[in-house]
């Protein structure tokens, strides 16, 4: 399940959008014990000014991204705008049965997008 973008193809400024990954939809629900799914989210939106500048409490902007947005606003060219990508991620844990009938708890880093940033 993904939150549809609002207004235009890229839906406003760069930020995290809701994306729920259901293990049932992926067909893993018969071997994954928990969770049933998780909020992975994704990044989308414009990285033009002022979205590229650091917002209150948001991830620090990369100077290069600000420079690119400035150049683009002055004279749009082939370099284009910076990209809206994950800037802060967090882990999930998955509990499942493996093929040796063991109960396994695995921890995976960088599975959930908490914040997006222009890069």
């Amino acid at each position, binding site marked *: 399940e993904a939150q549809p973008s609002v207004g235009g193809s890229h839906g406003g400024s760069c930020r995290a959008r809701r994306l729920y990954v259901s293990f049932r939809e992926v067909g893993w629900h018969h*071997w994954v*014990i928990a969770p049933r799914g998780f909020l992975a989210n994704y990044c989308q939106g414009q990285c033009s000014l002022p979205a590229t500048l650091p917002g209150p409490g948001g991830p620090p902007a990369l100077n290069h991204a600000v420079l690119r947005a400035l150049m683009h606003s002055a004279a749009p060219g082939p370099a284009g705008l910076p990209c809206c990508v994950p800037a802060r991620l*967090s882990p999930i844990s*998955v*509990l499942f049965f*493996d093929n040796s*009938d063991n109960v*396994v708890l695995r*921890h995976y*880093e960088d599975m959930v997008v908490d914040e997006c940033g222009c890069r």
Partner: protein
Amino acid sequence: RRPAAPRPAASLLQALGLHDSPRGAPKSRSVPPIMWRLFRRRDPQEARLSPRRTPPGATPRPCHVEELGVAGNIVRHVPGRGVRARTAEPSAPERCPTWTLLFDLSSVEPAELPSRARLELRFAGEGAAAETDGSWELSVAQAGDVGAGPAPLRQAVASLRAPVRAELLGAAWAHNASVPRSLRLVLALRPRAAGPCGHLAEASLLLVTLDPRLCHPLARPRR
């Protein structure tokens, strides 16, 4: 054999360090409480659902199992497949049985480093043993080491009413040894005085390993 998972799912499985999707929950196996506890303490999204369990702002250290106090990102609960090895003559000092246990560790990857291996044994006493506290000595050795001197792991057991836990790493399992594909242990539970024998009802191994390939060096916070 199950049809191979479709391409994207197979790539995601591989990214999660799994070769193919396991066949599913075995009928005879429930999830041990310790694994539920570790999952609920570990999963940040679960933590968000029950903030009481996790102090606000606390983010679990990556590649570390806080509850067990060791480095690791994979915890396995492995059921023991027990075989009764030998019952001595009732009159012999070792009149109580010994057991050979087999743990299938073939699902552990060579790159995984063991950081904790806790044996959990449940005994059903024969008659009086279950009711009274007594004093036993548990000895554990790898099957290949039996007869080569005293058992590397010897532990006093005061009661058979609660599960008996024994740490194998550094005792019956050398610290820097890699994980074998199968672990064969020989157990003996000897009463210190002429007391009743215990009877092994269930054995399991809680194995914590660290797969360095799934650990990212901590990104330095921006100055």
